[in-house]
């Protein structure tokens, strides 16, 4: 396992560097931020001062070399917008997003397993129909619309939750509910599909015939089998959550990294953008490695003897499973 881990980490390092170089170059292409940071009537002299002060007049390669030199010393530069060290700003915002995404993902998985399993017990039954329809619809609603609608209904009209902010525990409800929709919608369909399959497999029939209760059959036997595809897809969905976080955080005033990233793009705050992207990329790679590990363990435990299985199933392969377990009509 350690060999595997080491290999994955090494092979992730190069893509990481590519990501940073790419962002660095792209960000510089969006133009000199001087006019954004200087007053409208700034003179040519002021413009030059600004450019020189921030090193934007160096050749791109020199700028990049300086930046990487800084990164190696854990110096991520200073935010143009706030004058704070970019690394600090990013580390401060990261936990908020991590918590939001973590709780959302956890809830999505738990709910999807419950709903998906329930639906799978009677394929094409009423529960199945409703849940697959609802989950599909939920996954196709624009998140910002849902967020503003949610605020209107639950915060203003009903007054159940605060409109936004992080001040009380109840203020978590709306952002999570909004962020939940897409992963939940997709996961329900995957869990359901996987469950339908495993419930029809011989060993389940065996368990049933031995008189195991339905709950036990589902929770002990079938679910384990269905966990693998769900786990991998959950990984991809978790990455997708960052997209949702950009929108949800800026609406709900959530002090997370999604909001920070979009602000830094809008304000051409290069140092912060780069630091944020670096941290996100690292955590996404870490997540992928964890999922691979989890998958390998699950795989080894659940079906060590499956004849057809000749090699470890990669997350990519599971992507395909996801497709094959879509609900039927």
């Amino acid at each position, binding site marked *: 396992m350690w060999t595997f881990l080491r290999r994955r980490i090494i092979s992730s390092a190069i893509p990481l560097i590519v990501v940073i170089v790419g962002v660095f170059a792209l960000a510089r292409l969006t133009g000199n931020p001087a006019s954004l940071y200087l007053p409208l009537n700034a003179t040519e002299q002021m413009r030059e001062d600004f450019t020189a002060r921030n090193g934007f007049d160096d050749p791109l390669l020199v700028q990049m070399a300086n930046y990487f030199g800084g990164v190696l010393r854990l110096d991520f530069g200073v935010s143009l917008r706030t004058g704070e060290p970019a690394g600090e700003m990013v580390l401060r915002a990261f936990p908020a997003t991590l918590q939001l995404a973590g709780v959302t993902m956890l809830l999505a998985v738990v709910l999807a397993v419950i709903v998906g399993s329930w639906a799978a017990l009677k394929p094409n039954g009423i529960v199945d129909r409703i849940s697959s329809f609802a989950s599909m619809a939920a996954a*196709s609603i*624009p998140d910002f619309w849902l967020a503003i609608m949610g605020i209107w209904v639950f915060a203003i009209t009903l007054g159940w939750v605060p409109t936004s902010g992080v001040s009380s525990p109840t203020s978590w409800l709306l952002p999570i509910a909004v962020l939940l929709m897409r992963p939940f919608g997709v996961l329900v369909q995957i869990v359901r599909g996987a469950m339908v399959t495993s*419930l029809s497999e011989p060993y389940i029939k065996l368990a049933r015939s031995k008189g195991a209760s339905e709950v036990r059959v589902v929770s002990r036997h079938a679910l384990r089998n269905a966990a693998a595809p769900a786990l991998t897809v959950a990984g991809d969905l978790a990455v*997708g959550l960052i997209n949702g976080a950009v929108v949800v955080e800026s609406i709900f005033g959530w002090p997370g990294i999604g909001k920070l990233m979009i602000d830094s793009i809008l304000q051409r705050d290069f140092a912060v953008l780069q630091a944020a992207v670096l941290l996100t990329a690292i955590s996404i790679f870490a997540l992928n490695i964890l999922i691979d590990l989890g998958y390998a363990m699950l795989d080894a435990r659940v079906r060590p003897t499956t004849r057809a299985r000749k090699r470890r199933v990669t997350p990519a*392969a599971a992507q395909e499973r996801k497709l094959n377990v879509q609900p039927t*009509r």
Partner: protein
Amino acid sequence: MSSPLANPQLPPGGRSVTPPSTEVIALPRTLDTSKPGLFHLLLKDRFATAAAIVLVLVGLTALVGPTLMGDLATQQNLSATNRPPFSLAEGWQFILGSDSLGRSMLARLVVATQTTLSVALPAVGISLVIGSLWGVWAGFHRGWRETISMRIADVIMSFPSLLLAVVVLYVFSPSAANIVLILALTRIPIYLRTARAESAELQSRTFVDAARTFGTKPAAIIRRHVIPVVLPTLLTLATLEFCYVMLAESSLSFLGIGIQPPDVSWGLMVAQGRQYLQTAWWLSLFPGLAIVITTVAANVLAAWLRIATDPAQRWRLTLKHKRKRFIARMPVKEVA
């Protein structure tokens, strides 16, 4: 795409050389021969029929709508803004109300259909074609080609696609063409990974080995034996992605860099209508419904199509109603 049946080097009974446990190696087949049957099958499934009708309507609207209603959609009337829907007092054009500039919502929705589809379809199409071919190629050859391809996919996937789109659209102006390109680029890895996995698995199969033994060139094997098999899966994936792309386009509008006025798309309408949520809910609800209905219909049809185009499962659709519940018990295809 030629059928393997036309290939003399492969026995027509391709299935006989495949292990019985792998349903996934459904016989590569020509779509042409199955079409009449497909249509017949479709009519038997009420949900799939409804979905197909919805999609055909959406497609027709996109094709002819702008010609019919293009002028109406830009006709402003500042004295009749934000008229509520479901009233014929202002004429049939305002059955869905009017927007903040007094334009007909109905006409705007119709015209927006074309823009929406002309972003979503090419974006999905481009990423599907590039991602699939690349993935199949990488998976078929394995080795360094596979490794490099997968690392490239990692790079794209490790950067939140929405943010990448935002950055790129700031560099290059947010025109429809650029939105299509960037959405296509960020979604290539999805197809790349799937196609690679399937193709890598297929290339070790006996019938591929057989073709290789007979001296068929890799390109030909890919074309004749690999692509036809992975295509249904990829097409299903593309339907799911269709939903994603429409939503992404909408999110870009929310961030102010999607489709720009005076062009109009469903996503833009939802994004712009959000500020009127309390005073004129119809401005964002109707385009939002359009997105939801279209994607649900596409998903329903895709789910049905996957079974219908899979000979190993197709029989399930022909069952009598009573036994229909078994249709859903389709196995997860094993990849390994």
